[in-house]
């Protein structure tokens, strides 16, 4: 079912031993076979992908090097702007909108020889943990079509898991890359805030959003992150440094590395099968020479509350612009105010409305200090507690998701239950720190489980070393 690793594809295409066109055709064949069931994409760019592949092959034939992603099919979450191509955020309000510009990450992928094969489904405006909040219908988990793929980047996770693309990009505001990666059995990385330019990523919560890679293996994820990371003058919050070296450190091992298991996120509320895999992962790291102990990051328990005030507050402001004036859908009204109300009422789904209202409330006169202001102070506490933990540890470990993939519809009636899915992933967003989910074993239901590796700001290299060891441990059957 799979087209092979991105790393191998690029090497073969660059060497001229495999054509990009053949890769893309295989990929599109997989889409033809299963996309009807999975619904990973809002838009499949078959013709464009084939044309791009032909262009790559022509360049190789010409003796040129198309770059590190030569001929690699990449799926883009449909909240990344693509010039002239529909970009919807899985929302009715943006249906049909074609941005006049490419997101910076899209430019970098294309410049590296990558081939965009489609725009993937998501929870509307990235608000959700199951990809059920899409205006265009849910995405299903390729491992079990009755289950959700996680979210909000469920389409990207499913696309990689189903072999529709070798790589995919998602965005992670509270776990939206890592959680679907865990549920779909792929690698998902939320980089340090500011490592990857957000220019062209349609904002959900600006101080938390970060673009990151999905891949079938750790090395491919490192490869894609190297391509998209690095300073971008179009994003003020972009770290003014070059992209880090990640692929080269993957074989460095974890000997002597100090690994802490976050006790606050590894007990109550986490399913036993998930915990069992977490401890198996810890054991694997110990076997590889790491020193594993329990770590305490007390304030992480407040992460969920802080997040569900900060993220909706920022979202309420970021989503104000969808007013029917400049782009997107409009529902007419007798006055501009009525037109705006009608447009937004018809254009947004229930979850988006809930979060806009929650955020509006959290910022409104008289409640700012109690809600948004307080949440920002809690954010400081979380950063402080992480800093203390990182005095003792190089990386931290915890589950990615409290459970394996759940059934479609299981949590849609109760938003708070859905929000609780993000409890392990949210603290890294609040702290701006990198974290990634690595597939590690399966649950009692046979569905994938992800282990989450967390690192301090710009600690991607160490994080990837740990991830590589976890991945290798699985390959030799060194886990439960």
């Amino acid at each position, binding site marked *: 079912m799979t087209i092979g690793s991105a790393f191998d594809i690029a090497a073969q295409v660059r060497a001229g031993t495999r054509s990009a066109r053949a890769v893309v055709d295989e990929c599109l064949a997989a889409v033809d076979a299963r996309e009807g069931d999975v619904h990973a994409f809002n838009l499949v760019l078959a013709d464009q992908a084939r044309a791009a592949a032909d262009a790559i092959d022509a360049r190789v034939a010409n003796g040129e090097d198309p770059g590190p992603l030569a001929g690699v099919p990449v799926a883009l979450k449909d909240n990344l*702007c693509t010039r002239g191509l529909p*970009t919807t955020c899985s929302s009715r309000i943006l249906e049909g909108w074609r941005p*006049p510009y490419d997101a910076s990450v899209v430019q970098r992928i294309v410049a590296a020889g990558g081939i965009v094969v489609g725009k993937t489904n998501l929870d509307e405006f990235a608000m959700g943990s199951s990809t059920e909040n899409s205006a265009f219908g849910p995405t299903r988990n390729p491992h079990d079509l009755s289950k959700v793929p996680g979210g909000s980047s469920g389409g990207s996770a499913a696309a990689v898991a189903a072999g529709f693309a070798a790589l995919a990009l998602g965005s992670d505001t509270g776990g939206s890359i890592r959680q679907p990666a865990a549920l779909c059995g792929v690698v998902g990385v939320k980089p340090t805030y500011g490592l990857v330019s957000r*220019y062209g990523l349609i904002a959900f919560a*600006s101080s938390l959003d970060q673009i990151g890679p999905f891949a079938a293996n750790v090395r491919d994820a490192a490869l894609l992150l190297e391509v998209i990371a690095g300073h971008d003058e179009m994003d003020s*919050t972009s770290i003014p440094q070059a992209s880090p070296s990640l692929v080269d450190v993957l074989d460095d091992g974890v000997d002597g590395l100090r690994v802490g298991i976050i006790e606050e996120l590894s007990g109550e509320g986490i399913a036993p099968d998930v915990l069992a895999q977490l401890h198996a992962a810890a054991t694997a790291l110990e076997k590889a020479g790491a020193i594993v102990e329990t770590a305490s990051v007390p304030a992480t328990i407040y992460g969920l509350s802080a997040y569900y005030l900060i993220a909706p507050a920022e979202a309420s402001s970021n989503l104000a612009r969808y*007013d029917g004036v*400049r782009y997107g859908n409009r529902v007419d009204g007798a006055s501009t105010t009525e037109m705006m109300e009608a447009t937004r009422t018809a254009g947004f789904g229930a979850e988006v409305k809930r979060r806009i209202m929650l955020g509006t409330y959290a*910022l409104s006169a008289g409640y700012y200090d109690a809600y948004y202001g307080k949440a920002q102070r809690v954010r400081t506490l979380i950063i402080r507690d992480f800093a203390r933990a990182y005095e003792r540890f190089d990386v931290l470990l915890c589950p990615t998701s409290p459970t394996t993939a759940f059934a479609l519809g299981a949590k849609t009636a109760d938003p708070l239950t859905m929000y609780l899915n993000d409890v392990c992933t949210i603290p890294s967003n609040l702290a701006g720190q990198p974290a990634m989910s690595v597939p590690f074993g399966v649950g009692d239901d046979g569905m994938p489980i992800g282990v989450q590796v967390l690192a301090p700001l710009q600690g991607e290299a160490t994080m990837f070393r740990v991830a590589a060891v976890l991945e290798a441990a699985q390959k030799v059957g060194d886990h439960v």
Partner: protein
Amino acid sequence: MSDVPEGWELICGLEVHCELATTTKLFCGCRNRFGDDANTNVCPVCLGLPGSLPVLNGEAVEYAMKLGRALNCTVNASVFARKNYFYPDMPRDFQVTQFDRPTNTMGYLDLPAGKRIGVTRAHIEEDTGKTSHAGGDGRIHGAEYSLVDYNRAGVPLVEIVSEPDIRSADEAKAYVDELRKIVLAIGVSDAKMEEGSMRVDANVSVRPAGSTEFRTRCEIKNINSLSSIERAIRYEANRHIGLYDAGERPHQETRHWDEENQRTRAGRSKENSDDYRYFPEPDLLPLEPSAADIARIDASLPLLPAARRGRLADVATVSAERAGLIVDRGQDEFAFRAIGAGADPARVLVHIEQNLKDGFGAMGIDEFVRLVAMETENKLSATQTKQVLAELVAAGGSPEEVAKARGFEAMQSSDLAAIVDKIIAENPDDWQRFVAADDKDANKIYGFFAGLVMKATQGKADGKAVREIFMQRRA
């Protein structure tokens, strides 16, 4: 003329929005230019397209800090905030501004007459687009639809908020006038009220004279010229007094100056208008100017209009107001240096005020100084001086050579005396009347003789010397 009836006091604070004259907008590289075709200076950022992000124009911050320092403000570490409200001229339906941590605070502006007006804050924010109202009568109410142009959206503004220290319409006008002069002097804005690059909102209230309370104020917007500031404030203050006199009271609201009808009128109150849900703009980072930055800004500031007026008034021993005319024309530096080089201050000011309105042309300061010296040493008559001056401005050269080429040489006093005696001899009747007249009438008759002398000497005679000779002969 008093603005308000006896027994009342007018209280006013001003909010002045000043567009900064940067090349590009505050957060994107689109041109900051007035008058271009609608929606031609727009990009994903200033249209607020999904996914776009702001990147701060460093020059705008530099200009804002300059303005802050020129207004004697403390320049602080500052943070941008989002002010959230829906309006079609705002591409993101929020305005990026500064809220609780503005760049400039606690400054002041001294009016030319000497009064000090506090400047509460001068913060950086983005301008909105422009809406025009079509159908109906073209005004916002009654229009069938509106059109939006985002060329102005994202243009950098500094909003300068004064303390309620202003006590008359005249002071308000003087404040805006002086602020405009400062802004122009430091070159951060073209400050054209007619093009909207300087916009004034006035907060007006009244109170019984002698009281210290602050009563309900109304904010007057849409004041489009320097002259309408006075009228709008005066109208509004008297409207309040009328309400109080009738046993009513004004309520806090935003009102609009209606230039056509010379009155303020209530805007429709905007729903939930006071709940702007400010929070720190997450797409922008804090500004933390260093002490070195502020020192650099201070060093870059030119001498400001008040100091220039004071400096010229000092050396010329005239009022600051009179010096102000020359300062406003930007001719004070020339005047100051000429006086410093020894030229007679009174003559320098008269020449600049009257004969050099259009500038100094090709004339250097040194040449001007020498010309004034020739005049004050009676080597040239006033008339001759004016002619030489005109030629220096037009073509340059040295005053001595120009005077010589025109034959403007001071006449020997013996030659002059001979001419005077000849004229007396030729006009005996008039001379007798002159001698017999009292001083007042003599003066009138003298004009006749002086004219004859100037004609005879083709203007070369020095008026003072001529008068002396006549008075000697008459005595």
